[in-house]
């Protein structure tokens, strides 16, 4: 079955990012397809490669990146939400005249249309948030 996941909450805020990660991983472990993981609102903060959590804590960004690499997962960050929160890829950083980008490997920045498409293309859309 084809799943899509929407995440509206940032990492280390409460538990939604953790729940979404474990759910997505369980989907893939069971052999389901995950059409897309869409990060919206504060959820975009999962996609910065500059987080440095304590070594004995889970590293959510790294977990997502590794899951994406292992399963060729499409992880999309909402562009409007990302710009407000300072999540930039190389292209956006140049376009906005910023001196650096910070998007983590495995994430890409795109529009809300990608969420709509995921809702249509997937058999189930599961939402995690606060």
């Amino acid at each position, binding site marked *: 079955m084809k799943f899509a996941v929407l995440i509206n909450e940032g990492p280390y805020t*409460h538990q939604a990012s953790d729940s979404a990660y474990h759910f997505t991983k*369980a989907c893939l*472990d069971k052999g389901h397809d995950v059409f897309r993981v869409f990060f919206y609102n504060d959820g975009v903060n999962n996609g910065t490669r500059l987080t440095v959590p304590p070594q004995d804590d889970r590293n959510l960004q790294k977990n997502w990146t590794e899951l994406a690499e292992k399963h060729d997962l499409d992880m999309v960050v909402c562009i409007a939400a990302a710009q407000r929160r300072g999540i930039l890829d190389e292209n956006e950083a140049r376009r906005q005249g910023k001196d650096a980008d910070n998007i983590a490997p495995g994430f890409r920045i795109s529009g809300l249309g990608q969420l709509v498409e995921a809702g249509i293309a997937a058999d189930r859309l599961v939402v995690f948030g606060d």
Partner: protein
Amino acid sequence: MPTLHTVNKSPFERTAFGSCLKHLAAGDAVLVLEDGVVGLRKATAFAGDLDAVSGDHKLYALGPDLDARGLKPDDLVSGVTVVDYGGFVDLVAEHDRTQAWL
């Protein structure tokens, strides 16, 4: 066309869990995760609301979130089935849609 409802906040913190129970249609089930699992404790002010629906609707709790809060199946109202993340995925697949009560 049953729906799986997910609740992730305690009913003692927000009203979403209570609202969810009032909106269940025939065949719907409720999966409780994160702080929502606190709402499944027996002998609380909320337990009666759960008893009112548990005859007609399946109640599920996410095991890892019970463990994280020191809750055991014996601490919960009767009729709750504990599932892991794989069980969560199965429930989503078995129902026609999932409604998150955020």
